[in-house]
């Protein structure tokens, strides 16, 4: 599978490494080249400096041939915008977007984006650990 990831933070880098290990073709974008230090030395994919809300940067990362796009930068709005570009402009079949704010997540979910809110997921996990 061809996967484009936007944001090479802890989650982005880890996800890129996992997919790369499984033999997928991964391209990861970040505006800050220093972020790529998080990628393991064994990483076979492409690490590109660029903004995932910019169509030209996405094209360089191979968005037109991508089977999946994941937006995991620190900014909810950036993730939402990039995910909508991937879905509506480039028609990427699978688009996933991280949104910290649960209310915003709920809305974009109803608008048809596939979304994950680590705030909700994390709080539930912690509760389960405490009450079990």
């Amino acid at each position, binding site marked *: 599978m061809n996967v484009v990831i936007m944001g090479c933070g802890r989650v982005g880098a880890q996800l890129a490494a996992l997919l790369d290990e499984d033999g997928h073709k991964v391209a990861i974008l970040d505006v800050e080249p220093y972020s790529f230090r998080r990628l393991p030395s064994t990483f076979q994919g492409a690490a590109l400096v660029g903004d995932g809300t910019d*169509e*030209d940067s996405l094209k360089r990362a191979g968005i037109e041939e991508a089977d999946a796009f994941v937006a995991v930068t620190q900014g*909810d709005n950036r993730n939402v915008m990039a995910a*909508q570009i991937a879905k509506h402009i480039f028609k990427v079949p699978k688009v996933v977007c991280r949104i910290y704010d649960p209310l915003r997540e709920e809305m974009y979910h109803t608008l048809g984006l596939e979304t994950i809110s680590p705030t909700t997921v994390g709080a539930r996990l912690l509760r389960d650990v405490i009450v079990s």
Partner: protein
Amino acid sequence: MYIIVVGGGKVGYYLSKTLLSEGHEVLILEKDAKKCEAITEELGSVVVRGDGCEARTLADAGTERADMLIAVTNEDEDNLVACQVAKNKFKVPRTIARINNPKNEALFKKLGIDVTVSSTNLILEHIEEEVPTHPLVHLLTLKGGSLEIVEVKIPQNSSVAGKRMKEIDLPPDSVICLMIGKWGAQVPSGDTILEAEAKVIAVTRPEAEEALRAALTGS
């Protein structure tokens, strides 16, 4: 009208000031405490500190009764999200977004934002107008983007200078609506003679712009 302005920077401040003076009810949402304070001092209590992209802030601001939401922060993604939340969650009838990167114009339209204003394009157009060597200047793109109004300066040596309007071969869908020459502005007829060094205001299609420029400047 009740208008919510997201972003209390320079654009947000002056926009709100104008809207208030026109008698509208205006509420500014701004994240930065210092900016909020400054605006309150100048315009009174028309500002609430908060993130205009957050549904809760918008709910507290009474967005469900707003007639319009205008997002004018420096960040395109924030303007997009503020408008989308207003539109989809609070059913605001009209949303306007400022765009900094002109490439985002088509995307915003596609995602349901009613009106976009590209500050970069506006500045470029105004500067273009002031560059004297440029023979063709955009004045306005008509709604929908299929027609535009341009200004063309007829050079001294243009091959069409001195000709009657009806003798000039213009590209399809292009019309000269106004000629501003030595004797002032006039609406030309077919027999009006095109003066050298006059300015003409024409309607054309964006794709015919280059052909129009060539037809009028004779190069």
